[in-house]
């Protein structure tokens, strides 16, 4: 069966494929783990900052400890963000796919196929 060469859609396709950014393998899983690790690390830093401040007599040292604690809070917040971003994405994809599948099943059970 003879067919014409597909120049236009092929050229566009090759251009679009060339523009695809390929993530490093397992990047999403790695970032999820980094986020999970950052949460307790941030909390630990905050607690360490509190202990440093409590055991200090000078305001300069206490200011340093305050900064450690603030960094700890920031690390924890970033960790929460990363964790939610990469855990929810997978869950939401699954939830959407399941919803579409259930709607499709419901539609098919109400409407038999032509060959039946």
């Amino acid at each position, binding site marked *: *069966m003879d*067919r*014409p*060469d*597909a*120049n*236009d*859609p*092929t050229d*566009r*396709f*090759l251009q*679009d*494929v*060339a*523009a*695809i950014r*390929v*993530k490093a*393998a397992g990047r999403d899983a790695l970032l999820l783990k980094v986020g999970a690790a950052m949460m307790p690390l941030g909390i630990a830093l905050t607690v360490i900052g509190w202990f440093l401040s409590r055991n200090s007599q000078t305001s300069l040292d206490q200011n340093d400890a305050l900064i450690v604690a603030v960094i700890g809070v920031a690390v924890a917040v970033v960790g929460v963000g990363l964790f939610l971003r990469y855990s929810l994405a997978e869950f939401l994809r699954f939830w959407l796919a399941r919803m*579409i599948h259930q*709607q*499709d099943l*419901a*539609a*098919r059970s*109400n*409407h038999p*196929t*032509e*060959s*039946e």
Partner: protein
Amino acid sequence: MTTLLELRGIRAGYDGLEVLHGIDLVVEAGSVVAVLGPNGAGKTTLLRVVSGELEPSGGDLVVGGRRLNGVPAATLARAGVCTIPEGRGVFPNLTVRENLWMMTHRGVGRSEVEETAFAYFPQLAARTDQVAGTMSGGEQQMLALARAVVTGPALLLLDELSMGLAPLVVQGLFEAVDRLARAGVAIVIVEQFVDAALDLADRAVIISQGRVSSEGAPAQIRDELRAAYFGAA
């Protein structure tokens, strides 16, 4: 001819169970490749790897000359890899028009989408406000094909296009697929209607137990299948 898709030693599976054990396949621009085989052979898994839905555990998925293992399906869809899954894949609670509008993700406007779809399938023009779930199986499959056409795909993956449909309806759908192929779209079609698929295809591949057991011209594959089922002449 430009090679659009190349699978090199593809291995894939689910939850540690390997289904594909080293699949090699080449699809050139504007060609039709029929993937045949018994139930459970791995045909749908193969399409899921190509579409990006399933990341292969081994081997290379080379699309347009680039290794794209692990690239999300949405990214490949935006680039021009279009899949019509087993079971149509239309949104049953949306109307025909709304289903078509869902395909504007490649930057094509709504009116252009409708114009293209109705040019290929004039029957859909009379049903624009009908809810897709109330259409017959053949009409839903027609809508699924229309949704694929409007995206201007370069590579179209069809999984069991004829499933559950009457032969006359299947014939109409295959004629539409043939028109797409003549327009230059590369097509990989998984089918159990062997004769219809072989009439359409430029090449055919038989997959059995996750491996390519035979590959060649449709006439050769037809003879091999006939010999396998009915004995050599």
